[in-house]
């Protein structure tokens, strides 16, 4: 197997095509839960978990259920089903295991269901790793890796943003920009910074 390719996939998913800052997917929790580092970390962990597992399940569903029956056109609805189930499971587990985190994240846990970053990574997996010249093993591992690394990239962006916003709270922001508006400005600056990675070629 070509390990260089896996490296490329990982770097690409985390930095070059960062789901939040380059692809602009999943902006709702990015703005909503990034006020403090701890909930941001929890949100990132939840998204990594949901992304990886739904990447795993959607690959199986697509390869062994949708392709053999010729139902590729059902992939959006089938993937949403998988994602929704995982988010529900994460929500239940979190309410039991960490009630404090559950309260801090509030409405944003069910909103992972409609987080386009999660659906985006599964659809991208299908588009990128279901070509004719790819072996099943490579396709599977590459899909899983991309899903996991997309989650890492999501968490990275969340952590950077929450760190900045925690400091922003202490600064004297003009009144008309305080709160969400300054967060958007910061997000766009970060996005421009991440644009620098797009020069990397492997």
């Amino acid at each position, binding site marked *: 197997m070509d390990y260089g390719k896996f490296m490329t996939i990982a770097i690409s998913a985390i930095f070059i095509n960062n789901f939040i800052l380059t692809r602009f997917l999943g902006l709702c929790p990015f703005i909503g839960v990034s006020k403090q580092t701890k909930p941001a970390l929890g949100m990132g962990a939840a998204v990594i978990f949901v992304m990886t597992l739904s990447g795993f399940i959607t690959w199986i569903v697509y390869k062994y259920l949708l392709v053999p029956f010729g139902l590729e056109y*059902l992939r959006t609805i089938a993937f949403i*089903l998988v994602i929704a*189930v995982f988010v529900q*499971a994460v929500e239940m587990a979190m309410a039991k295991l960490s009630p404090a985190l559950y309260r801090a994240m509030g409405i944003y846990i069910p909103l992972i269901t409609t987080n386009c970053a999660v659906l985006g990574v599964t659809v991208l997996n299908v588009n990128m790793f279901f070509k004719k010249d790819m072996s099943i093993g490579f396709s599977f591992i590459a899909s899983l890796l991309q899903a996991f690394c997309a989650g890492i990239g999501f968490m990275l962006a969340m952590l950077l943003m929450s760190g900045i916003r925690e400091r922003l709270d202490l600064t004297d922001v003009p009144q008309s920009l305080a709160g969400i508006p300054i967060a958007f400005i910061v997000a766009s600056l970060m996005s421009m910074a991440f644009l620098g990675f797009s020069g990397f070629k492997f």
Partner: protein
Amino acid sequence: MNILLPVIVLGALGIIFGLWLGFVQKLFFIKKDPRIEHIFSLLPGSNCGACGLAGCYGLAGALAKGEVESITCPIVHEKEREDIAKILGINMSEVEKRVATLICGGGTRCKDNFQYYGIEDCNIATLVMNGPKSCLSGCIGFGSCVKPCPFNAIRMGKDGLPEIDSKKCTGCGKCVKACPKEILILAPLKKMYSIMCNSHDKGADVMKACKVGCIACGKCVKICPVGAIELNDNVAVMDYTKCTNCGQCIEVCPTKAIGKRETNV
């Protein structure tokens, strides 16, 4: 037949996932206080926030946990109130119903200092030399208290003053916060009389600005048998906890600055 295949595939997926979710639910089962849902169903569900907590579900949770001693919701009906008390097994201390009350009688009877052309909003008009009214605490009459009311209890009357429907008013206090002149207060519904002026100007200045302002003559203070009215910084102030609804003050007021509310709610 073509339609059957996708239906079966998606249906099977749904059933498998459903079973799995049921299993997870069992695995991570949390014991919740069943009383919370029950109390929540009895509360009005308007989420007005008058109880001081985050919506009706917040109050239900706080009541079940015992964080709140009495049912602080001002709008829940008597029957539901008793039911909730039964569920909690506590003795109900009744919360007196309070309604928004205007303490300004000016409106069109209060002179304008200048003509205001601009956005018709009290808060914005106040930024321009404290508003067009010659009285600093006079009602501007653009009705900024009307919009925030979640129960449609306020509308603007003909005399340039808001009219409050005390049947609809729940005492949530949103209009009180919205008024820039601070001339809306929450007063007990059962107390009928209010001093309809909040101007701290001297008597002579009040007379120039407004026909129905309090000139702080002190007649109502003298006649009140229970001492419920006091002069405070050139205006009479009513203490609603002492007032007995006798109505003697309204008769002696020379400028008719005391108002009466019909209370047959």
